[in-house]
């Protein structure tokens, strides 16, 4: 009987340990993303000041390329070059192989649904998204459409900039409250706004 309880207690302790690690890493992910945005803020200020390849911390292999703001939702994020898992852990990533933000074609920016792009679901048609690139140029985009697509059938073409020639696509995982990795993506399409 005693032997049995000791075993049970030991096992419970192991479970507590594992559980604590899991919860810890779960909390670390958003914390890392939040801290990274603070460091990115500084790197971004440097990049804006004309410093080429401003890195947020000395060993970082990522670079801020733009900032995106949704005035209506009071959301503002710094976008990194590249949408690799490593870059996206810190902030929204601008996908390589897509147009530069504000240039002709479609620029795709992806981020996690549970950190920087948790607000994506609140965007609706007509919302204004402003983007400032490292050279200080500000561009306004107007949300024209939101859609849910399969990750491997997004129908996004980086060379097609939509009717205004320049398009911004914000991408995150769908459904927003999902827990497991999903093959679906939520895409917000915004076209360059001539009025802004």
């Amino acid at each position, binding site marked *: 009987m005693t032997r049995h309880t000791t075993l049970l207690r030991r096992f419970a302790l192991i479970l507590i340990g594992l559980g604590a690690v899991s919860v810890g890493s779960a909390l670390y992910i958003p914390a890392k993303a939040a801290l990274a945005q603070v460091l990115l803020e500084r790197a971004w200020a440097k990049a804006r000041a004309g410093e080429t390849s401003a890195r947020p911390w000395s060993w970082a292999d990522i670079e801020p390329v733009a900032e995106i703001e949704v005035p209506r939702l009071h959301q503002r994020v710094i976008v990194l070059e590249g949408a690799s898992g490593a870059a996206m852990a810190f902030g929204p990533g601008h996908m390589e192989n897509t147009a530069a933000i504000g240039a002709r074609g479609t620029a795709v920016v992806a981020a996690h649904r*549970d950190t920087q792009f948790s607000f994506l679901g609140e965007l609706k048609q007509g919302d204004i998204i402003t983007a400032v690139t490292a050279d200080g140029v500000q561009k306004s985009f107007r949300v024209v459409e939101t859609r849910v697509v399969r990750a491997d059938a*997004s129908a996004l073409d980086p060379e097609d900039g939509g009717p*205004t020639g320049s398009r911004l696509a914000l991408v995150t995982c769908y459904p927003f409250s999902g827990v497991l990795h999903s093959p679906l993506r939520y895409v917000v399409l915004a076209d360059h706004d001539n009025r802004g």
Partner: protein
Amino acid sequence: MRRLKASSKAHDLRVTFRSAQIFLLLLLSTILLTAMAVRTRAQPQEPSCAQGLMRKSEAGTGTLLLRTAVPGCYLPAPRVAADFDIDIAGPVARTRVTQRFENPAEGWVEGVYLFPLPENSAVDTLKMKIGDRFIEGQIKERQTARRIYEAAKAEGKKASLVEQERPNVFTNSVANIGPHETIVVQIEYQESLRYDSGRFHLRVPLVVAPRYNPVPQATLVQYREGSQYSVFDPVPDRERLEAPVLRPEEGKVNPVSLEVRLEAGFPLGAITSDSHAISVVRNGATGAAIALTQGEEPADRDFTLTFAPAPGSDPAVSLLKETKSDGNYYLALIVPRGTETAARSRPREAVFILDNSGSMGGESIRQAKASLLLALDRLQPADRFNVIRFDDTMTQLFRTSVDATPENVSYAKGFVSNIEARGGTVMLPALLAALSDPTPNDRSRLRQVIFLTDGAVGNESQLFTAIDEKLGRSRLFTVGIGSAPNSYFMSGAARAGRGTYTYISSADQVQPRMAELFAKLERPVMTELSAEWPDALKGESWPNPLPDLYAGEPVLVTLKGTDSGGVLTLSGNIAGRQWRTTLDLSQARDAKGIEKLWARSKIAAIDESRVQGADPAQIDTAILAVALEHHLASRLTSLVAVDVTPSRPENLILSSAQVPLNLPAGWDFGKVFGGDTPVRQDHAQLNVPDSLLTTVMLTKAPPAAVQPNDAGLVLPQGGTDARLLLIIGLILLGLAGVLLTRERIARAGSRQ
């Protein structure tokens, strides 16, 4: 006992029940742990790239990568180092360009290099060096040459194909460069130097500047039966003029070395270069050897060399002759004398056009504005003027030209000072506005259009035609700005506009070059120029008719004749006075390459007749005949060299890649390739970053990795594991809690 037995039975049951519970808990946690392990292992594992391609992480520093159709996979860009070996003999030069194609990739590659040559160059020789062998290129009709090349490429043979895209832009395609292999290709051309204001000018363009190619225009055409769209593309060969351009922060590529052997034939004065640091070693009074001080420089701006005769030895005449089996070829360069005293010409109406498109951003726009301000200061009160600026929009300062009063001039100077470079290069409307003349018969004034631009457009022929049609009494003067202006546009527009061209390549050139231009604008022009060759020669001379001469310019004429000897008479009219000079042809010096220059001049003349509305089919036939007969590359003929034996194993694929080019020195990348240009509906296609997007096409695509085009981009994972981890963690903690509670109950039970 019974009770005890019963209790023991109950206990057994409880134990069994608890064991089952524990077993279930264990099972559940095992499942959860496995799930976690799988999660960790399922971290994105990058698929490896197809043969010859690599990931960014695999490339060493300094490797230039080209994007491919496979996302995340890159091809190390082929590189070209060039060497120019230039022999100048009097007013003609022969150049041998050696291009070394280097393939840094692991796979087999076709390198495609877009490169410039002088707009009047006669390209006659192509050699491909493989090991110690030279393979001589053949001149073929363009399509035939292309077919020969494609066949060799498919068979795995090394081959080189030199095609003319514009008179000053060529493409060299080199097929089947092996992994880490270098292939050497040599191209040779002949040219005549430009003589202007007492000095000879050599210009070696080293980089093709990114061009602005206006979008095709669709016009709704009405017929009685209905209507239909007709589409006119001002740049039908747009994709042939586009090459990947490096961002300045990616460093410079394509190193160039250059050596000039100069034998002027007259005592030499100053030898200078406005573009590069040069070292000059004199060789007697008339010769010199010139090289780049740095040894190698990146191909990011034109090389210019100027040499002047020693004071007092100004040669008024150069007469060269080459004897070939089919006749004698002459080239005469005559500097008119005794015309300097001619009176200042009539009052002028000057219309200035300033190109402030994105390609002018940086150094160029400052030089252009400085030049224009200088020109405005130069206006006399009797003159009239106007200023037009354009990018993909356009502003005309005054509705019609106004008097050059101090108020008007100072207003215009304020306007010019505030102009900034941005946007596309939509040249045609500005040109048409400048050439529109409300008083076409007013002979009291000279109407001059002064056009400051880098000519970075691809629709040259459309513009030439417009200039020719609308010119009237106006004369067009182009001022080429920047480190790599489009020389074909500069000289062609000036010729169609019956004016002349000037180059300004740096800030300290503004003053002296503009002073020369003012002399041309203000001094009388020599018209009705004609060359009379001896009848016995039965000659054919080009250009024909001869263009008007501006102050400081010489007559340059080439002739093919059967006989030799006799006297050449040149005559013209300057400010109402007759000018005349004679040349004894028997005095001609023997020289090489005059035949090529004559043929090149003839091709240019035939091509220009298209502007005046000659039948395109006839023009093509005529050019083809001349080019084939004289072994010249042209719009319709290409040079192709093919190795005899295949070198690429059949099972290996061949990638094709364009050699990346430098952004011309002084250019602002953002201004050219977008960033701050407002994108409007009608100009949505205008920013031409195409060349930056896709650069590599796999000739034989690897089956697995190709991304289906119609399905669009593959989007990255958009959620973290935070929630899942949190849930797993909480369940584990919960389980632990249950276990501990159970255990405590059990212990409490056993204590009883």
